[in-house]
């Protein structure tokens, strides 16, 4: 069953560029990588960063600058982008990991806003215009990346490697310690872990993957702009992760696909995208805190139970609520109220 699912997913990923617009698919992939990087923090270490666009945007600017002004190749361009995100992650992390929970969110938001204002004024970012006409170059000097189909497979390959690396991190001993920090930091301290170092470590890792996503996305669009470093994007990556399900490997990928599709289908209708995103935030927080993948993996999910009951007995509302009450009584799931 699982193997079948992944094989069909792989086949879909391989034929997708012939069915959909490749740039759109690459945007989904970059955002999925970004959301997965964000999920390392929120889903496993329990840290809500509200400033992740800073890493995405910084790497984007540095990569764009390297490709346009220093004339470096595709691979080196990505690498300097990632390095810049790591350095920024280290600087932000040293300040932010001193506080937990809500403070962490507010501090990362403020630091990211500082970065945004710096990029607004700094000469090398081109201010409101951004850095335009970023060249794609060639992969290893062999494959021409200006062809969208070629580039799609390269982006797909890099993103899949990124997902696998994050999967590896999450299920390593390091990942286990992170989860224990996320669930009970005091206990992790009493077990002898230096949680500040672990938090800083995962923060920098997350920044690195976010930087990779930002650098890739700049090369996809050929444009590095302020939007990549804005708080809007920091909010969107939270939304993608929550919609799909924080703390699951597939969740952020599903969430990114949904939100990017939503954005492009509502692109014509002005600010209603923002309104719908806000409404989804409210809905998720009030009713589906585990997200789509989280709820469908959870055998005790109240949402799933409710859906099943309605399917079984579409008319008899009394029976639905009775069954609901009986089942929740035995399994006692907190969380949805």
């Amino acid at each position, binding site marked *: 069953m699982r193997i079948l699912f992944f094989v069909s997913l792989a086949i879909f990923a391989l034929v997708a560029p012939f069915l959909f617009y490749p740039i759109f698919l690459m945007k989904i992939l970059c955002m999925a990588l970004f959301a997965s990087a964000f999920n390392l923090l929120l889903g496993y270490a329990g840290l*809500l960063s*509200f400033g992740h666009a800073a890493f995405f945007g910084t790497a984007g600017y540095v990569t764009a600058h390297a490709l346009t002004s220093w004339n470096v190749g595709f691979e080196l361009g990505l690498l300097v982008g990632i390095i810049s995100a790591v350095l920024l992650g280290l600087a932000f992390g040293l*300040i932010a990991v*001193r*506080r937990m*929970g*809500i*403070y962490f*969110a*507010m*501090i990362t*938001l*403020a*630091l990211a*806003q*500082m970065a945004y*204002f*710096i990029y*607004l*004024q700094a000469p090398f970012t081109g201010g409101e215009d951004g850095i335009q006409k970023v060249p794609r170059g060639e992969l290893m000097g062999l494959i021409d990346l200006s062809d969208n189909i070629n580039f799609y497979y390269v982006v797909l390959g890099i993103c899949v490697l990124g997902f696998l690396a994050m999967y590896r991190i999450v299920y390593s001993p390091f990942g286990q310690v992170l989860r224990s920090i996320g669930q009970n930091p005091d206990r992790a301290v009493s077990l002898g872990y230096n949680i500040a170092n672990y938090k800083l470590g995962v923060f920098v890792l997350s920044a690195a993957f976010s930087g990779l996503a930002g650098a890739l996305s700049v090369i996809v669009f050929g444009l590095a702009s302020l939007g990549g470093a804005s*708080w809007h994007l920091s*909010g969107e990556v*939270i939304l993608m992760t*929550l919609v799909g399900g924080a703390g699951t490997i597939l969740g952020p990928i599903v969430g990114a696909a949904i939100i990017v599709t939503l954005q492009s289908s509502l692109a014509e209708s*002005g*600010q*209603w*995208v*923002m*309104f719908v*995103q*806000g*409404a*989804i*935030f*409210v809905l*998720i*927080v*009030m009713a589906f*805190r585990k997200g789509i993948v989280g709820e469908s993996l959870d055998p005790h999910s109240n949402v799933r139970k409710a859906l099943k009951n309605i399917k079984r007995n579409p008319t008899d509302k009394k029976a639905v609520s009775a069954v609901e009450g009986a089942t929740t009584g035995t399994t006692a799931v*907190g*969380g949805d*109220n």
Partner: protein
Amino acid sequence: MLDVFDVSIQMVMGQVAIGLINGSFYALLSLGLAIIFGLLNIVNFAHGALYMLGAFVGWMLLHYLGIGYWLALILVPLLVGMLGIIMERFLIRKLYDVDHIYGLLLTFGIALMIQALFLNIFGVSGQRYPVPEILKGTLNLSFMYLPIYRGWVIVASAIVCLSTWYLIERTKLGSYLRAATENPELVQAFGIRVPILITLTYGAGVALAAFAGMMAAPVYQVSPVMGVDIVIIVFAIVVIGGMGSISGAIVAGFGLGVVEGLTRVFYPEASSVVIFVVMAIVLLVRPSGLFGKAA
């Protein structure tokens, strides 16, 4: 010393005055955030949107109903505060038992919805709100000319901030509030209705934001995006002052307004980031903020 930087005393005083005006709004907003955080443990991300809503409700009262500035100054906080009470009663209340970050995410979603709604109706361009007749004109302070309305902003917000501080720190009602912050169960056991106290506190915090918005309407343009940047700055100010500290919020609000103004004189390029830099330094030296209790 001033000669070194090649700036005049007029320039410095002028920027200090502008800093105090911005600081008035920072103080009113961070005060509201601090009150809400103290009792509800929720960071109200919708604060900037509610500030914007305050300005817009004031503008709409004037344009559609012909209700002038002075009456609006009372009506706007009441109306927007009422909306806050509805939000608390039907949405925020359901989140008290889960991780506090959900409160932040919920209010972020609400902020997006309010902002998008007004962007759809009014677009990005701002609406003008006229300065009330009595407060027109300028005041000659010998070293500078101060528009009377701006002086009024500083005075009025200082009065509101100090009365709020007095109410919380020196009255019976305030002592209930502080006790409920420390230990809600115990206060409830004494027969004080904590849920109502919480609802009213959220309403009061929101009303302060709306009041700030109404005060800001004649100074800045009334625009759907006016609350966006300010809310993040105010977050930084609340962190600097110490989360939940009433006096910290007021002092840091006015103080950082002045710091920002002075930066504009000596190093204008840094004026938009100076508050965030101060925040980073404060966090490194005193992680709980200037006036905060150690966590």
